[in-house]
């Protein structure tokens, strides 16, 4: 925690505040924020994109994952000042005028989002995986999502959703299996 700095506080913001112009979901933004403000805070509080959630704000849970130039990054540990000229993608940037991203669609069909709080982070981490590896094995999915915690699903429906989306993104006419939707046996 910062030490009390009552008198100097406003000066501090004025002199060290930084005007940054991040590109988020392909759109330019201009915000003036104190340099120590995290990307998570800037996205949620200054830009208004509250789709990015937080679970610990210490880099432990993966909930605040966003993509920077396509790579998953914990936004609670990232400083926006260091991101000039780079592309930030949040969950709000996944859908298009055509509708949901295939990952989002698969999460919907398989109930892979329960409370939905960790979902944006998972969907983005999965998208980064599929960008580089269109046909991941189950073990590769587990590894790619190993930094994201979910307390609702036990991860299994998430794996199935990533696999379903991957198949569709490869152009295969994939549908959920009966076992996915109705159980084994």
């Amino acid at each position, binding site marked *: *925690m*910062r*030490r*009390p700095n*009552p008198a100097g*506080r406003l000066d501090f913001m004025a002199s060290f505040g930084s005007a940054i112009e991040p590109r988020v979901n392909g759109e330019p933004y201009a915000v003036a924020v104190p340099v120590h403000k995290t990307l998570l805070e800037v996205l949620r*509080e200054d830009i208004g994109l*509250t*789709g990015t*959630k*937080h*679970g*610990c*704000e210490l880099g*432990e*849970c993966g*909930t605040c994952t966003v993509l920077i130039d396509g790579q998953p990054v914990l936004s609670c540990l990232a400083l926006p000042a260091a991101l000039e000229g780079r592309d930030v993608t*949040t*969950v*709000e940037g*996944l*859908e298009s005028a055509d509708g*949901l991203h295939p990952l*989002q669609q698969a*999460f*919907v*069909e*398989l*109930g892979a*989002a*329960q*409370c*939905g*709080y*960790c*979902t*944006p982070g998972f969907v983005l981490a999965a998208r980064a995986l599929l960008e580089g590896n269109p046909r991941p094995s189950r073990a590769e*999915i*587990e*590894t790619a*999502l*190993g*930094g*994201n*915690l*979910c*307390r*609702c*699903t*036990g*991860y*299994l*429906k998430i794996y199935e959703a990533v696999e379903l989306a991957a198949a569709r993104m490869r152009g295969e006419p994939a549908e*959920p299996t009966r076992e*996915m*939707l*109705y*159980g*084994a*046996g």
Partner: protein
Amino acid sequence: MAPVEDQLRVVGTSLPKVDAVAKVTGRTKFADDLFLPRMLHCRMLRSTTPHAEIVSINTQRAEEHPGVVGVLVGRDLPNPYGILPVSQDEHALCLDKVRFIGDPVAAVAAIDEETAFEACELIDVEYAPLDSVADIEDALGGDDPAIHLYGDAHNVHKAIALEFGDVEAALIEADLVHEDLFFYEGNTHLPMEQHAALADYRPDDRLTLWSSSQTPHYVHRALATVLEMPASRIRVIATPNGGGFGGKSDPFNHEIVVAELSRRTGRPVKICLNREEVFYCHRGRHPTLMWIKTGFKQDGSITGMHFRSFLDGGAYGSYGVASTYYTGALQTVTYPVPAYKFEGLRVFTNKPPCGPKRGHGTPQPRFALEVHIDKVAEKLGLDPARMRLDHLVEPDSVTANYLKIGSMGLGACIEKVVAESGWNDRFGKLPEGKGLGLACGSYISGAGLPIYWNNMPHSGVQLKLDRGGGVTVFCGSTEIGQGSDSVLAYVVAEVLGIDPFEIDIVTADTSLTPVDLGSYSSRVTLMTGNAALQAAERARELLVRSVAEKWDVPGVRVAMAEGQVFDVQDPECTMTFTEAVVLAESKFGTIGTVGSYTPPRSPGRYRGAGVGPSPAYSYAAAVAQVAVDVDTGETHVDDVWIAHDIGRAINPVVAIGQVEGSVYMGLGEALMEEMTYRGNRNVVHHHPSMLEYKSPTTHEMCRVHTYLIEDPDPNGPFGAKEVGQGPLLPIPPAIVNGVYDAVGARVDEVPVTPQKVLAALKRKAKQEEPREGPKKALTFDWPDAIQVPPPWAGGDGRALEEGREIGGGGVRA
């Protein structure tokens, strides 16, 4: 009339949840996603000492800090509150004493969070430390100062003794009497969403609170009490919870604090707890020491059981009295227990308060019972699956402690997992280091009695139909990820023959929606489902009468499906659902109906009979396949086969998600999750962070093979029973039994850490009892047990005491 089974079009189909698109796109607004103009941010100053008198609090420096708008201390909110009427022992901010590290003593509202943080550091608190109470044994020692001035004994919050039949005589009749001692470590919910609340008080004396709460109705009541405002001027809106698992079921101090700060500053005030504070909020699983002594016949049937539980309650009451009763309530609903004695107590300690976590008070005794039975099966030379299958509680029966069982699908569950796991060919026959364990469980589908005594419905639904064909469902239920909003839509859609995705759902808003008691005790599908069913059937009746009149046919000929209304005898004769609503509105005026649900009265009439009754019990059986590394002591679960008797799955894919999530959470509790403490007398939280509080990641999660057993229960909507909590129950004992099958080590304590496995293996190598677990039973001067003759001994549900009814008041779940 509800649609008959072969005509179901929505119920039983794996549809998306109605809120799924909002969740995957980031549109869902959780409490911390809300921002209001002029909003202030709140931080709370928390006790740094576990037990102390507050000598003084000086807030002057904080009040003078630039950017601070309001400061509160305990005397600003002097009225006590608490979730149970019998445990009104909390204050929004500590009045004169702190009881655990993390107990809040002051609060600040400031222009931003950082300023509020800074101001908290400028508050000077002088404490006069008291000796602290670290654990159950410590509390029962009686040497420490009292944490509270109420309870059944010094630092004993509650002590219970109940006996149903003559247990001593029953044990004499047994061929084998077996005794065990178990410990179940405390653990916490760890919802991904940190608790958050936003209060907005208006100068016309109206207050709105948005909060990540599972129980807005109880928050509403607590706010009225503490703020001394009429409930009619307070509106509580539960935002969708980013995970609850029971951890957001109490009215919380931070909710009351932001409400009062908003009232004092005239500005909206928000708080979002940081992760460390979420650990202090806790209300999670009680650490529980359990002693069990059971008599068995050679065939594995039980003659009688004596069960004792000792719960470490932490610093406040919370749901603890109910939790304590629950550690003794459901032992009787799986295998017949002709005579049963339960003694349970809960102590106060200087640690974060425990409360209800998924399974509320029942995973601990279920773990004890199922491992106990596994040991006895071996002693009797019986297969543990066969032994259970041969002795199952009958459907439509009443247990020794007067729980009314309806449908009972445990036999089918056991048979399913035995067949699918290859149990008969593989149990006891896997190579060293690999093992199979089996266990069962059962859970309530909602509590039979409300938390506070009243004769009103537990759940209410209002339905509005408009002339555009729109349908809106209003219900107080709270969406915590389990799919409660979706259940409302599916049930109404089924009855009205429309698309569930065309229905608007308005929930968890005390001003807009009729009361539902909340998302706890696995009550929501059964209770709101029944209320929605009644409201929808009443709406359907209005539509049918209007259409029948127009077509001049009897009402029974009018059917509704897929957005159409038609004459079953003349398929050419149809109209749209919207046209039917227009007809009905023309005939009857505005179309609105209501439905409500109150559980049936339970047969128990003794004091304590309020905990355990339910409209329906779910059952589950699981087989776990584990791999134990004898060198490191590490246990990994490879596969779980689990069958859950759900009555009927309203939405199978959502139900499977609940089963898989329960397996996951049970696996975490079995292998790694623990709320432990360190430091001076063991009261400083060991690791209040997500990194150090170990929970299963993708790498620890096992494969799960889920089987839904459907045998509709007459009390459930379309036959549905619960699925949110019950599937957790068999998991810890199945894993622990599997560890024994794998390496011959008995770990009578969860979590099964590598150290414990190695300790047991070390003893095994030395030819000692290959066991690790609690060694010492605790003694307590138990009260005389309330004697309640079981039904088969001519009992009528009342206690014997002078033949009069002594129940009725007291505690409920």
